[in-house]
C-alpha cells in the first residue's frame, strides 16, 4: 500500500499527518517513510531517524567533445529545456537547466557528446522511531530541479507486499508533487479552511483526477474560516476522513518537535481507523 500525503498549500499539516500516520501504523505493518519534500525536508524532526547510509543523487549531463563537434547545432535545436546554446563554434552547457533526458547525446550526428554525472543532491536511508524505515532526499541549495531526486528517492523502496509506504509530498501543485503522487494507491489531502487552502485543494483535486488516484481529505485547523470548504466537498464528492481541530497547545507542541500522537496519544486509534478507511477506498477504486 502506497499513500501520498499532499496539500497544495504549504503549512497545512502534511508532515504532522504523515508522521503521525506512520507512528500509528508501526505496530500493524512494516512502514517505510519517504520525505519527498526535497527542498526543505523536515519529517526527520518527528521520526528521528538514525541515518545509516548516504549516496549522491546525480543526473547525467552532456559534455561536448570539442575535437568531434562540428558545431552543427543539432543538440541546441533538440534541447527542450534550453540547457544548451550555440555561440559561434562553441556549444555552451547550462547544467542547472539540464533535465538529463539524453536527447542531445542521442541526436548528435557526430557522437561528439558524452554524459558526465552532475550531483544535484543526496539520498539518505535510516531507521527512525518505532522501527520506521526512513528515506530522505535533499536537493543541494541553489539547484533548481527537484523531480530527479524524488524519482530516485522513490526507487529506493519498490512496492512490497504487506508494507505500507508513506510519501510526504512537497507543497505546491507542480512537477515535484506530481512526481511524488505518481503510482501511489491513495492520496491523503491535508487542507485547512482558508482561502489559500481551498484554492490549492481544488488544484490538487484536478491533478488527482488526471492521474486517476483516489483521494480523501483531512481537514486541519478545523473550526476556523467559513463554509466554502463544505461546498467543495459536496461538489467534488470527496470523503472527509479526519478533522483535527485548531488548538494552540497542539501547535506549540509541534513547534517543539513533538508529534501529534505524542501530544494526544488517543489519535493513534484515530489514525488506525483512518488507515482502514483508506484501505476500503483503495479496494473500492480497484473494482
Amino acid at each position, binding site marked *: 500500500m502506497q499513500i501520498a500525503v499532499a496539500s497544495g498549500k504549504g503549512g497545512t499539516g502534511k508532515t504532522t499527518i504523515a508522521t503521525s500516520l506512520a507512528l500509528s501504523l508501526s505496530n500493524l505493518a512494516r512502514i517505510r517513510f519517504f520525505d519527498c519534500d526535497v527542498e526543505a525536508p523536515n519529517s526527520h524532526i518527528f521520526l528521528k531517524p538514525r541515518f545509516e547510509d548516504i549516496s549522491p543523487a546525480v543526473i547525467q549531463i552532456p559534455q561536448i567533445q570539442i575535437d568531434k563537434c562540428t558545431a552543427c547545432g543539432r543538440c*541546441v535545436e533538440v534541447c527542450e*529545456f*534550453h*540547457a*544548451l*546554446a550555440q*555561440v559561434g563554434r562553441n556549444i*555552451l552547457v*547550462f547544467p542547472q*537547466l539540464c533535465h538529463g533526458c539524453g536527447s542531445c547525446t542521442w541526436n548528435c550526428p557526430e557522437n561528439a557528446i558524452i554524459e558526465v554525472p552532475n550531483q544535484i543532491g543526496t539520498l539518505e536511508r535510516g531507521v527512525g522511531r518505532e522501527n520506521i524505515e526512513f528515506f530522505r532526499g535533499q536537493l543541494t541549495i541553489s539547484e533548481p530541479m527537484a523531480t530527479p531526486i524524488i524519482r530516485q528517492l522513490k526507487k529506493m523502496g519498490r512496492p512490497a507486499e504487506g508494507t505500507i509506504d508513506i510519501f510526504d509530498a512537497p507543497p505546491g501543485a507542480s512537477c515535484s508533487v506530481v512526481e511524488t503522487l505518481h503510482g501511489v494507491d491513495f492520496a491523503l489531502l491535508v487542507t485547512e479552511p482558508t482561502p489559500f487552502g481551498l484554492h490549492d485543494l481544488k488544484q490538487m483535486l484536478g491533478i488527482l483526477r488526471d492521474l486517476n488516484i483516489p483521494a480523501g481529505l483531512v481537514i486541519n485547523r478545523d473550526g476556523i474560516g467559513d463554509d466554502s470548504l463544505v461546498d467543495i466537498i459536496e461538489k467534488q464528492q470527496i470523503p472527509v476522513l479526519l478533522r483535527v481541530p485548531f488548538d494552540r497547545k497542539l501547535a506549540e507542541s509541534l513547534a517543539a518537535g513533538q508529534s501529534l500522537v505524542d501530544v494526544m496519544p488517543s489519535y493513534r486509534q484515530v489514525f488506525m481507523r483512518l488507515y482502514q478507511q483508506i484501505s476500503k477506498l483503495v479496494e473500492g477504486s480497484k473494482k
Partner: protein
Amino acid sequence: MKLVISAQNSNLESPVDNRFGRSQWLILFDTQSDQWKAFQNPGASQSGGAGVAAAQFVVDHAADVVISGDFGPNAARAFQSANIEMRLFPKQTLTVQEAVDLYKNDSLRKNT
C-alpha cells in the same frame, strides 16, 4: 551597431521591458541605418530556460549590444561568451526609442 532591446510591445514607442528572458518582444535596431524590426521573444513562452532561449535569439541575429533592465546568470554567460555587450536601462520607465537615443549618447550603464 546592431542593438536588441527588450520591449513590452512591437514598436519604438513601446515601453521597454525590464525583464530580458520573459519580455514579449525583442526589437532589433541598426544604428547605422536607423532601421528596426520587432520579433516575438522566443523566451517569453518557455516554461524554463527563458534567458538562454532569448539569448540564443540575440546571438543568432548577430547583435553587438543587448539592452534590458537586468540579465540572469545564464543569459549573461551566453552574452559574455559571444562578446555581446550588455547595457542596462535607467530605473524610470522609458520607450524603446529613448533607450536607443540614450545608447547613442553613450548614457547607458554597462552590466557588470
